């Protein structure tokens, strides 16, 4: 059974550009969460979705947005990229409250 899959694995963008990151949860998992992990720190919560509805949002600017599709996959969008957005973006899926993480997308903004 496939785990949480994220794409792409690595990405380089220029300041001011936008980016879309994708996540496919474990089959049967209806909740998807997004986390940002800056080098040397623990993951920070960005968004949580359940059944296509936003259930929680962390302390991130409006440049960050997300959505969940009918098949429970999810996209994280970041507009007007800043150098400080460079990080590992992690997706986690959950069935009953336990969280399984993907390997992340490494975003570098130059």
């Amino acid at each position, binding site marked *: 059974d496939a785990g*949480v899959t994220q794409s792409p694995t690595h990405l380089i963008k220029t300041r001011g550009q936008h980016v879309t990151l994708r996540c496919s949860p474990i089959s049967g998992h209806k*909740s998807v969460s997004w986390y940002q992990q800056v080098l*040397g720190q623990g993951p*920070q919560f960005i968004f*949580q979705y*359940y059944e296509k509805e936003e259930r*929680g949002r962390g302390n991130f600017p409006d440049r960050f947005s997300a959505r969940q599709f009918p098949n429970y996959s999810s996209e994280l969008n970041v507009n007007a990229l800043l150098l400080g957005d460079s990080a590992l973006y992690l997706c986690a899926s959950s069935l009953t*409250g336990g*969280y399984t993480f993907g390997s*992340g997308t490494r975003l570098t903004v130059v």
Partner: protein
Amino acid sequence: GESVGLHLPTLSVQEGDNSIINCAYSNSASDYFIWYKQESGKGPQFIIDIRSNMDKRQGQRVTVLLNKTVKHLSLQIAATQPGDSAVYFCAETTSGGYNKLIFGAGTRLAVHP
């Protein structure tokens, strides 16, 4: 891949020794706690969890202790192996529904042969 623990506190142990990693959590309302292991270039991997109605839980070679009075968690790894080398994070949340995880700062465990 890049290391996730370049600036984190490091615990260095000899192979075969027992390791103890500590964590202070922040929210008195948190009632569910998880330890994750993160290797370079990978996402956090579940190790063991504990609910607030317990003060100790054991897994295979790992034990988690919870002290709610001082909001402290510890992860004990018995007979530490080179494959245990990674960054370890504690995370707290509230149970009941889908709630965000709040991660601690992390500790790098370095196991030397």
